[in-house]
């Protein structure tokens, strides 16, 4: 089973993007950081007790699924859209959604376009190997518009093409667009069009058939989300772990019952996962939130209590 393999290797192999600002990128010391990366670290912390025991495997849009299917990675956390065919036909198990996204368009303000429906005849940059190109084709077809796709391999290239004006619009997931826009020298000259042409629930996924492992990843993610809901942060974690009068928190942090054992882990698994990078909200804020250059608002990714979609099932 994957859990045993990971324990035996004493390191979690985690597939990430080769480089997407805010989501996964190595720093000058080669330490990976980012929103997707944080999920891996949390899983590693939960399973191995050490958030640094992760081996990051950079994957491209083309290679990611094979990497997972062949066992080259144990979990793929690479802004991957959860779709029917990927789940069912390609034989993967999506363990949840860590980011609710949708495909949008970014254009220069001075292009004079305020809606995607005005993009007839435009040149559009897209990243290949993603669901984006299918959505794009469908959207323009449905609206009876023509367009000129400019396929590109990586976000870095897409950004460069777009900035140079080689395409009128750049389309990818809104999070990516925002992240990209944030780094522009003149970010204000660009805008995201209001239309969201697709649903893009992004989440970590694992191979089909190893339910225990899928559960571990799923509930680690849920633990991060729940922790935010219950107000468990890396700052008050120790204090909360000492015991609170909220039994849900107690169960989550292992002070009460032994949920960990059911997963094949120990009691403190969720505590460690949260300690790794904080709860969902902290991770968001640290990597892509409004305080960072990327500056994404929580939007759909707020807790259900705040009007968002994040809704961790109960820990009981």
């Amino acid at each position, binding site marked *: 089973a994957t859990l045993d393999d990971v324990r035996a290797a004493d390191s979690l192999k985690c597939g990430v993007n080769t480089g997407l600002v805010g989501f996964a990128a190595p720093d000058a010391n080669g330490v990976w950081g980012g929103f997707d990366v944080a999920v891996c670290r949390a899983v590693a912390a939960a399973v191995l007790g050490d958030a640094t025991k992760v081996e990051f495997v950079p994957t491209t849009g083309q290679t990611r*699924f094979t990497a997972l299917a062949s066992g080259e990675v144990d979990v793929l956390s690479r802004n991957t859209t959860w779709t029917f065919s990927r789940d069912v036909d390609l034989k993967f198990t999506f363990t949840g959604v860590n980011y609710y996204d949708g495909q949008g368009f970014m254009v220069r303000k001075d292009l004079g376009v305020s809606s995607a429906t005005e993009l007839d005849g435009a040149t559009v940059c897209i990243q290949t190997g993603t669901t984006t190109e299918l959505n*794009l084709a469908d959207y323009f077809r449905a609206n009876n518009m023509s367009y000129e796709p400019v396929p590109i391999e990586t976000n870095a290239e897409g950004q460069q093409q777009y900035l140079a004006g080689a395409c009128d619009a750049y389309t990818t997931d809104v999070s990516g667009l925002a992240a990209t826009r944030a780094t522009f020298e003149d970010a204000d000259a660009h805008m995201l069009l209001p239309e969201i042409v697709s649903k893009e629930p992004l989440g970590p996924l694992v191979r089909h058939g190893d339910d225990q492992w899928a559960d571990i990843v799923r509930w680690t993610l849920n633990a991060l989300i729940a922790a935010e809901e219950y107000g468990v942060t890396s700052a008050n974690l120790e204090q909360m772990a000492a015991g609170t009068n909220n039994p849900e928190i107690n169960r989550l942090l292992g002070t009460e019952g032994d949920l960990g054992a059911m997963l094949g882990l120990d009691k403190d698994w969720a505590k460690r996962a949260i300690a790794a990078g904080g709860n969902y909200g902290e991770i968001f804020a640290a990597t892509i939130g409004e305080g960072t250059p990327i500056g994404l608002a929580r939007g759909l990714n707020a807790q259900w209590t705040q009007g968002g979609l994040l809704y961790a099932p109960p820990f009981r």
Partner: protein
Amino acid sequence: MSAISDETEQSFRLSMLLYDTRYRSLTIQVIASIVIMLSLSWLVWNTIQNLQSLGKDFNFGFLTQRAGYDINQRLVEYSSESTHGRAALVGILNTILVAVLGCALATVLGVIAGVLRLSKNWIVARLMGVYVEAFRNVPLLLWILLIFAIMSESMPQPRDFREGGDASMLFGSIAITNRGIYIPTLEWGAGSNILVAVFIASIGGIWAFRRYARKRQEATGEILPVLWVSLGLLILPSALFYFILGRPVSVLYPELGGFNFSGGVHLRNSLIALWLALSLYTGAFIAEIVRGGILAISKGQTEAAFALGLRPGRTMRLVILPQALRVIIPPLISQYLNLTKNSSLAIAVGYMDVRSTLGGITINQTGRELEGMLLLGGFYLVLSLVISGAMNVYNSSVKLKER
């Protein structure tokens, strides 16, 4: 011929399998084929097992399914409603297009650079040396990326061509933008058939004239100015009829409309960057081949021709080139082969060649890695076998006769 030794009656012993030259090769081959068969079947068996455990099958049915994605450059009808098979065809045509264009330009660049590298002009020779070394010693991928970047970074955007923009069309008809180059096309109006017929006829005329000139030289020794007459024949009658027929062919200039230029032919940046990079890179290798070919023809040949009173131009045409070509063409063709294979680097600039359609998006959307890669590999293999087959035919036809 058969081995008719006296000792054939000698009884067969097992050790003869190893120590008898007649059986030994048989033994080795049998063992080799068993090993090869075993390893092949091992691979196939593994594959079947793996496919099974992944719940996949092996079939090419996906080729007839809807592709669902768009391709910007298509030489045949294609839309996102077409099948994956058709997408593969579009990709194949795109690969062949860039390969053919690349081979042509690379040859031109290579010949020019190769000849200039031998030039007595110091600075020109040096410059060509720099060109050749720079391109030969830096990975092609980097050149593709660089040229692509130059194309998209330093060319004007289409909107710069608007009123008040700071870009203008070249000769009023060619728009070089950072989305590619828009060149005019021809529109064939009424009467253009006649024009085409005239043009074809004048090509026939050139051919006839060349024959006549050769006959005449053989008969009288007079040398007619074939080149100039040919050029005249090529241009004049067509030009004459063009005006007589009331200008049936008009040029359709690219015009700025909406976001982009429309009308004319759009050569996309991806195509141009790939084309230029492949040509410049391969051109550098061809330059070395051409240089080597010319140097291989000994100085003695030129001197002998000069001593006979032949002018430099004729010496080149009658003595040096025919010999140099024999040396040049075989490696030249293997460069063509390399260029064709290297065109698969289209991936770097998003040019939709066969690797990007069949071997890229299609595989990615359908999860048919095995089938897709097999088809892709098969396509390249057939292509290179055809090219190298042609080379072998050529080689054997021009081999110098020796004692």
